[in-house]
């Protein structure tokens, strides 16, 4: 199924997700998840249009979008940094790693950096406990992360972004 990401036409996108699930209000969450997969977040305008198409109150969509942590109504950064806050990771220093990321990027959990490069979202357990403490940036796992590695890892991404930008 093609998604109309190039033009960022939220109405078209909303129509497409509504149609993909036959306009069934049961599938509001998968619809919002699909919008998020396309745009990197759930554009409120798209959500509004979905509500109209499905004949459900906008408040229901809003409550769903704000209840489920994986959904975001604001644009996210290019890279999603996740630190696992599961029991084993916690016992092996996840809090300190989380604090280091927050201090390094000047963001709180759930926030995006000013340059829109990173969004930091701690998560309650990735299920990779043998690798504790675990950090995930997009799809790249960092296992047994040490505190002094954090700055270097983040710098690596920033550097790549700069060189990509210089190239373009």
């Amino acid at each position: 199924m093609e998604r109309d990401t190039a033009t960022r036409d939220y109405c078209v996108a909303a129509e497409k997700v509504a149609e993909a699930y036959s306009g069934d209000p049961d599938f509001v969450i998968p619809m919002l998840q699909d919008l998020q997969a396309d745009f990197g977040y759930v554009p409120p305008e798209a959500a509004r249009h979905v509500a109209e198409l499905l004949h459900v109150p906008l408040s229901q969509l809003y409550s769903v979008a704000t209840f489920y942590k994986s959904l975001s109504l604001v644009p996210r950064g290019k890279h999603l940094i996740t630190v696992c806050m599961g029991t084993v990771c916690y016992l092996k220093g996840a809090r300190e790693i989380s604090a280091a990321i927050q201090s390094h990027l000047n963001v709180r959990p759930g926030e995006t950096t000013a340059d829109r490069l990173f969004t930091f979202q701690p998560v309650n357990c990735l299920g990779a406990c043998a690798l504790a403490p675990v950090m995930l940036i997009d799809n790249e796992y960092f296992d047994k992360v040490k505190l002094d590695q954090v700055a270097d890892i983040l710098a690596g991404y920033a550097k790549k972004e700069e060189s990509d930008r210089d190239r373009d």
Partner: protein
Amino acid sequence: MTAETATVTVCRSTGCEAKGAGRVFAALEEAVAELAADGKQVRLKPTGCHGLCELGPIVVIQPGDIFYQNVREEDVPGIVRETILGGRLIESLLYEEPSSGEKLTCSAEIPFYSKQMRIVLQHNGIIDPTSIDEYVAVGGYGGLVRALTEMTPEEVIAQIEVAGLRGRGGGGFPTGRKWRSCREAGGETKYVICNGDEGDPGAFMDRSIMEGNPHAVIEGIIIGAYAIGAHEGFIYVRNEYPLAVVRLRKAIEDARRHGLLGRDILGSGFSLSIRINRGGGAFVCGESTALMASLEGRVGEPREKYVHTVEAGLHDNPTCLNNVETWANVPAIISRGGEWFASIGTEGSKGTKVFSLVGNVRNTGLVEVPMGITLREIVYDIGGGVPAGKALKAVQTGGPSGGCIPASLLDSPVDFDRLSELGSMMGSGGLIVMDEDTCMVNVARYFVNFLQEESCGKCTACREGIAQMSHILTRICEGEGREGDVELLLELCDIAEDAALCALGATAPNPVRSTIKHFPEEYHEHIREKHCPARECRGLFRYEILTEACTGCGRCRKECPEQAITGERKEPHVIEQSKCVQCGACFEACRFSAVVKV
């Protein structure tokens, strides 16, 4: 051994992938292609999780069942040259027995595996989880064939009842009784749901089953749907498990193409379709009524269960919801019979249980053991004990709904009822080993904070009660505990247990009560002496330098952000306590173990 007959398997589950299994696999693919060009056929395939995640990436070579651990991309040429072509073992990649230093070749020899009883996980690590043919080749879907062609739905339910299977998601409810109630409930439209929202921190059994053998789960669901009379099924998978979604999707598609899903399955007249829904990052959606609310496009708020979901669940229709591991047990029970299953385990807890054995234990990973085995056997015989010469303090079971079992009770058998009697619970299977350096008050605080974040907020007892527990525990861990705090915590526990709407709130007391019961002195020392006996709570212990161990190298002095350390080169250094902010930089920096926590 000739290269023509060799089969090489690489674990490609999330844990090993994160450690570079993908690169190992790619390198082997190239090597195998080169060998093929020379006329030498070697089979290479991905498998699901073997369980010994600590030692991943894991590569197993047949014939010979050669078990290589911690395999890196650069090891591949050597493996091809020495083992695949030359029939020789590479010592450095073999498993080493920690106490004797002995090298073991096959997984069957390794105590971690030899003491397990793998029923649910029996094909993990052996079959390619993306291949329905491999699943069928090891007897997969044999249970479904038997159920549809030789058994009535009633007979299927009877076998599950004889087996004594109890829910593996945490509740431990008798599965046969649940299926029977759902079958007998009125209504034409019924649903089956697989709860793959494994949210307990420290637990990844369901992830490995979904990733490593998705067909076992699907076969179980189809058998269950047949028994109950449901024609629509849902698998609800945590958002944080993308690989599980991919594997399940492929498995459903393959099953459909083979006529094992869809209309008139195997010509039996029974039809079933299964769809996958992804979670949205809410722990509470692991609760059955919250999960169903989520499937209805609503916020994941549980409801009262005066009316059970087997009578009125999804869209008020009779719904049978079971955990991934519960469903995965069904094919074996139907194939081999309920009596066989009931012959394993204890009186009240039949069969096996998959645990995620994690924390301060040597062999971190997934283990499947018969019910009734003791915690000591799991931690020491299978887990290899506590590393770094530390003493075991407690084993935490049941996730945020569970409790801590102290070392003194380590000979307790693993059994639903016995664990509940000890103030914990089986839970979904997280088994977290904690050593002497773990602060038990901090553990209680961790779980309470977790539940506070994940509480849906609907009922006051949970929303406000857990928040207050969190405030008190935080104060205690920060050196501001007061006399009466412990009593107040216990009072809040009573209220949450009585008044909370769902199990999230009602079992929140467990971590608090069990740590107060078994480690009261830790609470008292935090409150009365403002000291953390485990030396974990920052500010409640001191760092000191041992004069006799300090070589005067000066590393700690350089690392200290507060310039709190003084000392001449080659002279013992000293920490000025008034300047010290207990950051621990000196402790991390010292190579002579001269910085100690007091």
